[in-house]
């Protein structure tokens, strides 16, 4: 349908008065704003190693493999996370578990996750039927070689051991029941981060 004449609005530049045309009032206004900012010195900079950032609750960081109540790895080597991963960074080799653990068919003999290829999308966490793989809020885990950043099963389980008590990384494995995070106030990541935002749900306790 062609454009109607009544739908077109012609906009012109605002007419400047004599003084405005010299642009000196505009320059003076700009200098005033600059001086106000200079004097106020209100800085929004976060001084990084001393002040850590306050991350959202479901921040997608480094992965971990969860353990169940008996301390066994939850993963049953179903390959759903490896299939779902868009970057193909998970490699799993399964082994028979029915002799030691009668309630399981398989467990992972090796679970290798290449953190350098990972895009931290969280598809593996969504796909897992056993709540075995989860993304924590650790963002500063680094390595010095490529081999160091290819995490094996032991490394991933060790991340679980380090973070399972951190209230920012609740273990989301109690299906049907709310996890420990629902009973907490929002906590800052560390004592030095700026004040935490308030959560309306926590207030209902």
């Amino acid at each position, binding site marked *: 349908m062609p454009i109607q004449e009544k739908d077109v609005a012609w906009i012109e530049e605002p007419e400047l008065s004599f003084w405005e045309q010299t642009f000196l009032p505009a320059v003076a206004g*700009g200098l005033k704003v*600059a001086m106000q900012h200079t004097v106020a010195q209100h800085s929004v900079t976060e001084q990084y190693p001393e002040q850590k950032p306050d991350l959202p609750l479901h921040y997608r960081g480094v992965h971990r493999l969860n353990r169940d109540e008996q301390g066994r790895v939850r993963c049953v080597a179903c390959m759903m996370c490896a299939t779902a991963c868009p970057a193909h960074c998970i490699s799993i080799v399964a082994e028979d578990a029915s002799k030691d653990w009668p309630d399981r068919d398989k467990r992972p003999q090796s679970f290798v996750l290449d953190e350098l290829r990972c895009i931290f999308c969280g598809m593996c966490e969504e796909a897992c039927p056993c709540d075995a793989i989860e993304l924590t809020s650790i963002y500063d885990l680094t390595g010095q070689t490529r081999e160091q950043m290819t995490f094996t099963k032991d490394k991933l389980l060790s991340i679980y051991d380090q973070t399972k008590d951190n209230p920012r990384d609740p273990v989301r494995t109690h299906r049907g029941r709310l996890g420990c995070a629902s009973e907490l106030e929002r906590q800052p990541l560390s004592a030095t981060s700026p004040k935490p935002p308030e959560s309306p749900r926590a207030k209902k306790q």
Partner: protein
Amino acid sequence: MSLLPLLAEGGSDAISSLIYWIAETILLGWLGIPLQIGIPLILIAATAAGIPGACSYAIWLERKLAAWIQDRVGPNRVGWAGLLQPIADGAKFLLKEDIIPAHVDKFLFVIAPTISVFTTMLALSVVPLGPTTVGDGFSFIIAPKLDIGIVFLFSVTSLAVYGIILGGWSSNNKYSALGGLRSSAQVVSYEIPLGMSVLGIALMAGSLNLETVVDAQAQGGLFGWNIWYQPLAGLIFFLAALAESNRLPFDLPECEQELIGGYHTEYSALKFGMFFLGEYTHVFTVSFLCSVLFLGGWHFPGIAEATSVGTLATVFKIGVLLTKVFCVLVLIMLLRWCLPRFRFDQLMGLCWKVLIPLSLANMLCVMIVREFELSWFWLPVSSLFLFCMAGLLSFRPAPPRSRPVIRAEQLIASHH
């Protein structure tokens, strides 16, 4: 030689006495250097030692001011409040790998930054760096009693454009060449209003000597400062000086968004540091000139008058001059973050269509006032008159529109 009458009396305050003492005992006594060369040599040494340090800390000040304006902090890791940052930057420039690309014209590539530094430092030799006296007496200038002071200054700063042109051309790539060409057009064009606005000052003071200009202002007290009599010339000089030193809003030759780095794209390490040094030295020279030509130099009513003598007076005079230079410098740095960059045709249009006719008309007014010996009260009046005339001449009423016209605010409001 014009310096001979000075030599008989020594200095009237501790600082100039110290300089005389060093020149007499060390330079003349031990090394046999005559006083005519020795005293300027001491001042040259002081300036050459002071300017790179001052430029480094001007860069620190610029980074900090820019940060505060933008609600950031600026360098604060190296030393308290980042005050050792310039030292770290200097060490970086010295130790970085010095790359000379294979496709450049090697000789020109190497001498371009040196020309930039050389000419801007040479320009400092006629700028008063402290209290000055006309006639007998010690002046804190490297080349005192130079009766063509202003002309020398402008001729030397005109040479500084060679550094930029050669740097851009020898780099042998299109971005640098464009940056160099734009810069040469800009600098050469803005030389004209720069010189013509100052000629009005020279006409009023009766001499091209910078010491005479400062002395004339000091004799007149607070209302003897040239800014009251020639505000239009002051404004034109300030804008032209900003354009000469390639500062925003006139920094098209080196803008990152359009020309990668402009004429200094291919430079690394110390050569790049020298371009930076040359640019900031030019900014310092321009700030000194603004203070000396228009704001009364070392004079301040009550603290540093023309009649004050003695060591404390000299210290106050140096302090007043440096404070004025600092204020002009801060204004230049603030303007960088207030104004968008000029487009090249707007830049040229501003120079040739606005600043040159205004400065010509201003000079005409000063000539009329001097020739017919009118009261100097007519000078600011004529400045204001010229300003209004220029505005009215360029004021065009909106042409009649065939369609109904609405303003942008109305359109936005009608959509809500």
